[in-house]
């Protein structure tokens, strides 16, 4: 088969109105004219799993910290013998990645270092993980103490009498620097155990593939996955709150959850309401540090700042409870099924192989749950606090006239924000007007136009010529970027019978139903009972939605993507990594999703979508 290529970066058209987009991002994030030859020789895939929409300049911080810190653990901490980190660039607003291999002749020399370092972690896993929790909580607690208050008209008298001799602007600057540092710190911690979790998983994975040739990937995942993981905890809290509300007969208080204050006041005024509120407050800290997005965007909404979201979910659960539905996840059944699967595979082995199976599975089952649970602590909790603080700063500077919209800070990159802050404190300090209010509103308008123009185009799945085979283990596992997947994107893959899409068989089962295409978490309310969710990518915090839908189809993601994990947990079929599901499929089309084979068929491709838009109850198909 002749190898086709993806477009070169320079071949992708710049959307009208986005001209000059390169300059809104730091120089080191964009492809360089002087490096064109080297950069075009590399294969770059787009990570639209984590960054499905165009970066505003400030938002590159999440991509930079995450991918840099992932890389450092491969290349500098663990000395993975055959994999360094991942280079990354922003092109036309989207993030593209290129894994960096270790030269053949250096691999052997890294092995002893690797084994020593990895060995230490695996030997002392529990202890080190305990420390991790302390470190991460410490970072979050410190972040919470940071504030960005308007500077006073004059230095307080106390500071005069104590001879403090500083005007307080240094606190603003320090807090900003510290906030960035603390985010960076927790992103370093984020990867302390993540790569190890994947390594342990891969070791068990390869063993299983050896002793059970062609064993489905899903079986291996099931054997090491946690059943009751922290990632599901926020959703479980809502379910418990819904149950309690039903027990206490509080249903009527949840008639209009969009009005948070009125809803909570109404609960409080009801008999037993105080008990419910106490339970609600308990759940909020920390479990409402939970975003409907993925933690990487300034526009992500967090439950604790938008309580209409969790209250809406609670109301929906209350309705389902009143209809006699069982809303709880079948944890006991899932545990029993997992144990059965482990036991049956184990019984297929004899002697030494059984011992090896036990050791490898135990290691993977110990290390792997981190891969699922860390997400709450970093993406949700840490980043929830981070973005809240950034919004506080943005609003303060907005009040100082630096920009026209309260959250316009996001149109500056993080180093420009530092400049703008110094501009602010200088103007304030000397008793003159800062320059920013003159400079930034116009510049931000220009950038807003560019970002909006970039948003009109979807990213290319990849750039340049792919390697013949993709071997880098993390690329395969985290992103599902396999040789077959790349071929599929290039249109060279096996055709799906009857036309349709092929992706990864991420969670087994076959269902038919109507599609609901979601491009943005704000559209989640449109999802109706029994529909098939089609999205670029899903966030684990969409938990309550998974209780409503029949199946999930995503554009990107592998066996271990969040959509795959959550769907397996909810027992829903999922096909991930279809490349173009969310752009090919239209809401209302009838689909057949085969999560066992990894195919999605559009059953009425010619027909007009039956219904579109929220609140369309005319197709109550179950």
């Amino acid at each position, binding site marked *: 088969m002749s190898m086709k290529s993806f477009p070169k970066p320079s071949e992708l058209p710049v959307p009208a109105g986005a001209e000059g987009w390169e300059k809104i991002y730091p120089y080191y994030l964009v492809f360089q004219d002087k490096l064109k030859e080297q950069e075009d020789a590399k294969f770059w895939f787009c990570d639209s799993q984590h960054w499905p929409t165009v970066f505003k300049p400030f938002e590159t911080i999440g991509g930079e910290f995450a991918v840099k810190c992932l890389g450092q653990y491969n290349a500098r901490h663990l000395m993975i*013998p*055959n*994999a360094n980190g991942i280079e990354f660039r922003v092109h036309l607003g989207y993030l593209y990645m290129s894994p960096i291999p270790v030269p053949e002749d250096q*691999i052997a020399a890294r*092995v*002893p270092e*690797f*084994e*020593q370092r*990895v*060995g*230490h972690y695996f*030997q*002392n*896993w*529990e*202890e080190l993980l305990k420390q991790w929790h302390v470190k991460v909580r410490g970072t979050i607690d410190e972040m919470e103490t940071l504030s960005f208050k308007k500077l006073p008209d004059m230095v307080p008298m106390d500071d005069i009498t104590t001879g403090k001799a500083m005007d307080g602007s240094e606190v603003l600057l320090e807090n900003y620097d510290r906030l960035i540092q603390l985010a960076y710190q927790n992103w370093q911690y984020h990867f302390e155990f993540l790569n190890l979790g994947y*390594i*342990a998983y*891969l*070791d068990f*994975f*390869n*063993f299983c*593939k*050896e*002793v*059970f*040739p*062609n*064993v*489905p990937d*899903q*079986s291996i995942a*099931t054997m090491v996955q946690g059943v009751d993981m922290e990632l599901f905890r926020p959703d479980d809290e809502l379910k418990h709150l819904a149950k309690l509300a039903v027990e206490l007969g509080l249903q009527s208080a949840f008639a209009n959850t969009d009005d948070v204050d009125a809803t909570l006041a109404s609960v409080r005024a009801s008999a037993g309401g105080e008990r419910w509120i106490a339970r609600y407050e308990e759940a909020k800290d920390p479990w409402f540090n939970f975003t409907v997005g993925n933690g990487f965007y300034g526009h992500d909404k967090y439950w604790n700042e938008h309580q209409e979201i969790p209250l809406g979910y609670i109301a929906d659960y209350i309705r389902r409870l009143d209809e006699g539905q069982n809303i709880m996840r079948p944890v006991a059944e899932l545990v029993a099924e997992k144990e*059965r*699967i482990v036991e*049956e*595979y184990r019984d*297929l082995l*004899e*002697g030494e*192989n059984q*011992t*090896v199976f036990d*050791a*490898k599975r*135990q*290691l993977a*089952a*110990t*290390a792997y749950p981190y891969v699922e649970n860390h997400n709450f602590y970093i993406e949700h909790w840490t980043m929830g606090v981070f973005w809240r603080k950034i919004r506080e700063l943005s609003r303060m500077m907005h009040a100082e006239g630096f920009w026209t919209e309260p959250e316009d800070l996001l149109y500056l990159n993080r180093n420009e924000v530092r400049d703008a802050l110094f501009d602010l404190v200088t103007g304030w300090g000397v008793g003159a007007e800062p320059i920013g209010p003159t400079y930034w509103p116009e510049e931000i308008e220009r950038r807003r136009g560019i970002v909006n123009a970039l948003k009109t185009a979807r990213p290319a799945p990849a750039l340049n010529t792919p390697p013949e*085979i993709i*071997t880098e*283990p993390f690329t*395969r*596992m985290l992103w599902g970027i396999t*040789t077959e997947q790349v071929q599929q994107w290039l249109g060279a893959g096996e055709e799906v019978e009857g036309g349709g899409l092929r992706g990864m068989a991420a969670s087994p089962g*076959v269902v038919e139903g109507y599609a609901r295409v979601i491009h943005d978490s704000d559209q989640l309310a449109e999802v109706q009972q029994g529909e098939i969710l089609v999205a670029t990518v899903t966030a684990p915090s969409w938990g309550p939605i998974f209780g409503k839908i029949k199946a999930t189809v995503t554009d990107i993601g592998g066996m271990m993507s969040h959509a795959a994990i959550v769907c397996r947990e909810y027992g829903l079929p999922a096909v991930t990594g279809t490349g173009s599901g969310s752009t090919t499929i239209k809401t209302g089309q009838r689909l057949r999703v085969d999560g066992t*084979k990894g195919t999605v068929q559009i059953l009425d491709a010619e027909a007009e979508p039956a219904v579109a838009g929220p609140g369309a109850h005319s197709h109550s198909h179950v």
Partner: protein
Amino acid sequence: MHSNEFIQFFDGGVEPKLENLGGKGASLVTMTSAGMPVPPGFVVTTAQFDRFMQEAGITGHINQLLAGLDPEDVAQVDAVSAAIREDICSRPVPADMRTQTIEAYEDLMSRFDAPVPVAVRSSATAEDLPDASFAGQQDTYLWLEGFAAVGEHIRSCWASLYTSRAIIYRLKNKIPDEGLSMAVVVQKMVNAKVSGVAMTLDPANGDRSKITIDASYGVGEMVVSGQVTPDNIVLDKVTLVSVSEHVGDKHAELVPDASARGLVEREVDAERRSRRCLTDDELKAVAQMAKRAEKHYKCPQDIEWALDRDLPDGENLLLLQSRPETVHSTKKSAAPAATPGTGGYASVLGAGIPSTKAPDTPENSASGNPDSGNPASGTSGFSLGSITASLTKASI
């Protein structure tokens, strides 16, 4: 009626003995008592064969005919075979025994609203079965109605012990005719819409974590004898997820035909050929049944199964036969041997990096040493060499 020396019902509650029932008959009784969905029937025991051969004077005649027979003299062997089989098919069966067989048949028929067709199959005792392929020499007669036909074909099964091939085989291998016997299975005919075989391993490589199913339309004989290309599906044995699927051509099917009072071969239309003949649920049910058989016999099984057109969905899967898989299960270990701890670099942790361990504290030295076997630790006993090998493999 109850089982006795000459007749044993599958569900008669009598312990199956190979020497009385032959391999097939014993297996059907065992499977029935294990609660597996076996179509009902009974076994005409070897005791009946023995007494018939003795009392009808055939045994003596056989001994005369076989004495000094040259296995290379094909014409002479053919003549002897014909004579013996003529004896078996024509000489009277002792009346009391014949009455019991008729009663058994009527008892079987009485279980249905109307008389149903039956299959009559020979069931040889193990001593006569030096290899599985030899079983194919014995006979199966399908779709028989009324006792006249049944009785006649019980004799045909008996007679199949004396085909020319069987005689030559025993002469050449010096297998004596003393003790040679034959049981016969009489079983309700399955009105199969789909049928086939299943193995509780992957015959391609002996991998015991798979179940392999061949399935085609109609009665299963065409699959067993290789006259059609069936659908071939490999399932994971633990999760029953499909691992590979090939839709076979299935160009023809054997189906009952009322006017012909038997089975006729019919062409399968293009639409039915092009799709898999089993639904996902049916596939799962076949696999689950194969697993049950394997669990019961404690070794890999090769089963024959059918979906009965006359029974409702969910209750229509029947087990026709289960026997040990003979090709791979005779090898010591079916699963490919793994290569634990031989990554080519360090070996098992502790031995591989003794000088680089973390400063030993009572806590971490206990949990970190694989030899300490601390059951509470989830991370003891891993192999760094194997982890390295996993990461550096060309592909996963």
